[in-house]
């Protein structure tokens, strides 16, 4: 699936990078190169939501990034 939105850093737990989609959903970013992780960067991410994954961040579904492009 493809998700468009902006990259944000959330200061909860150990700190977590999230993608806030244009329709307002929050995804926890898993994987992807460090160049993806820039505060406020608008991107289109191609990846999969991992329904069987859980973690310490608990901010939303975990999105495993395959690729992305900066918009």
């Amino acid at each position: 699936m493809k998700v468009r939105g902006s990259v944000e850093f959330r200061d909860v737990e150990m700190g977590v990078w999230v993608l806030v989609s244009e329709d307002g959903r929050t995804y926890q970013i898993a994987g992807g190169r460090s160049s993806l992780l820039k505060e406020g960067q608008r991107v289109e991410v191609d990846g999969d939501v991992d329904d069987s994954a859980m973690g310490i961040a608990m901010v939303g579904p975990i999105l495993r990034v395959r690729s992305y492009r900066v918009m």
Partner: protein
Amino acid sequence: MRSLWCLLGALSLAAACAPQPARNKVTTPGSARAAAVPHALVVDFRDGIPAGEVAERAHRWGLPLRLNSVEGVRSGIAIAEGVDDVDAALARIKGDADVEEAEPLVQMQALAFTPNDPEFPKQWNLRMIHMPEAWEVSHGKGVVVAVIDTGIAYEDHDDYVQVPDLAGARFVAGYDFVHDTDHPNDDNGHGTHVAGTIAQRTNNGIGVAGVAFEARLMPLKVLDRSGIGTSADIADAIRWAADHGAKVLNLSLGGPGYSAVMERAVAYARQRGAVVVCAAGNAGLGQVSYPAAYAGAVAVGAVGPDGQLAPYSSWGEALDIIAPGGNTRLGPGNGILQATIDRTDFRKPVLAEYQGTSMATPHVAGVAALLFAAGARTPDEVEKALFAGAQSEGAWTPRAGHGRLDALGALQALGKSAEPVDWAPLIWSAALLGLLLLSLKVKVRPGYLNVLLNPATLLPLLLSTVGLWFLKLLWQRFVGHPPAAAEVLSLPIPDWERILFGRGRLASPLMYSALAPAIAALLAVRWRALRPVVAGLSLGFAGFLLYAAWAKAPGIAYLPFTFLARPWLVLNGIVAALLARSMLRREARR
């Protein structure tokens, strides 16, 4: 004469239940010790003595006397500090006609244990839940607490190091489900931080303190270096912990995805006698994440040092309790401080301040360990004490659950195993009976006491308003731990569903409605002999529902808007009252 009886009965009973006592719990330390303050004394002048006269005495006696407080002007209580010879000064004072009493100043100190860990003063979170007072009662000795997380920095092994402040803390064997080894060390820092809040080595002169510092930690690693794991590993670890003697399971993790496998694992652990404590989630939304939302888990939300729900904390129908999780938006020092390893270098021990519902959860897990060590036998007893001892404004709410964790309150609540019976619904029903009888014509009106003392009416009336409250008490007294059936029968009928499925969260609108009396009334159309029974049941439901509406308790689940709850209760209460009225009349017609 009969109508007079009815009127008197109705008025006196209505009057009896008019004032509603405040439900706020005030926690006070169990006891205190007293010590004389050196070179200080207290003088109790006659009430209302002018301040000028106190100043004149101070000058005459050569004492730095000052009124103790603003209130001192009225009460006449003054103190003097820096007095060289207190006894001689008291001898001078006591002859004065305006002095009612004079004595050395005594400092009352609440019984509290203050650990010598140098960073303890920064742990506002432990003071918030009254740990210094609770430590006088329990340290959680011997209770096994499983930390199902990223591991714990508990040993020097390969590249891994032990956090110095954990040296001397008690551990039992754990497991690393991520790498399938017997060395569940931490390569993230999260699990060690959480474990520290539960059972950090305390009063050892270094670092920080932990809640249940004589508990034994069981490290179970289910999350990888990035803090992510699979529901399969987590479910495995939950069962492993329950099978290896853990009494408390701490799961500072979660996700939005439902997993039947994990839900069954949580139910299994609880059935094996373990309390399963889980983080509510950090999405800041009105939905608690899994596994916290499963029946059988204690869902923990987070508050900042101001006691307010933290902006990141999730909340909602499944929330059970709130505990300190920090709020760093309020500035530095407002997170939860613990010893752990550096998040960028797991070989480096650090003191770190984090915020999250993960940080709130181990406070509750730690207090659960204190409760087990203090004599609680079942998860049910622990949860009841946690909820009953919490600081709250009254009934359960979706943003605070049963209230804010209080370690001392929970330990004190544990001693009071039997919940007080709330008689108000029965009193409302009895008053309502008087009003209903008055509304009937004399010819079809039965006598007040004839109705009330008929066993066929009284039993369903008791069952639907207060339950067979004595059943559980008798069982505990003569048999032992009561079975679920006795627990259920000890509660009013509308609450049966809550104890079976919801453990005192929101009520079902079907149970809190006139549905049961209506079905019973239909049966009574066919079988006339049932009428006294249905009269008692309807009357009980009417009193229960109307009282619930008046007392604003509890929340009703599944209704689209919470403001509909009270109209729903009132409407159904009136329907039940009308059913009761028709049953009473028809019975009298025969």
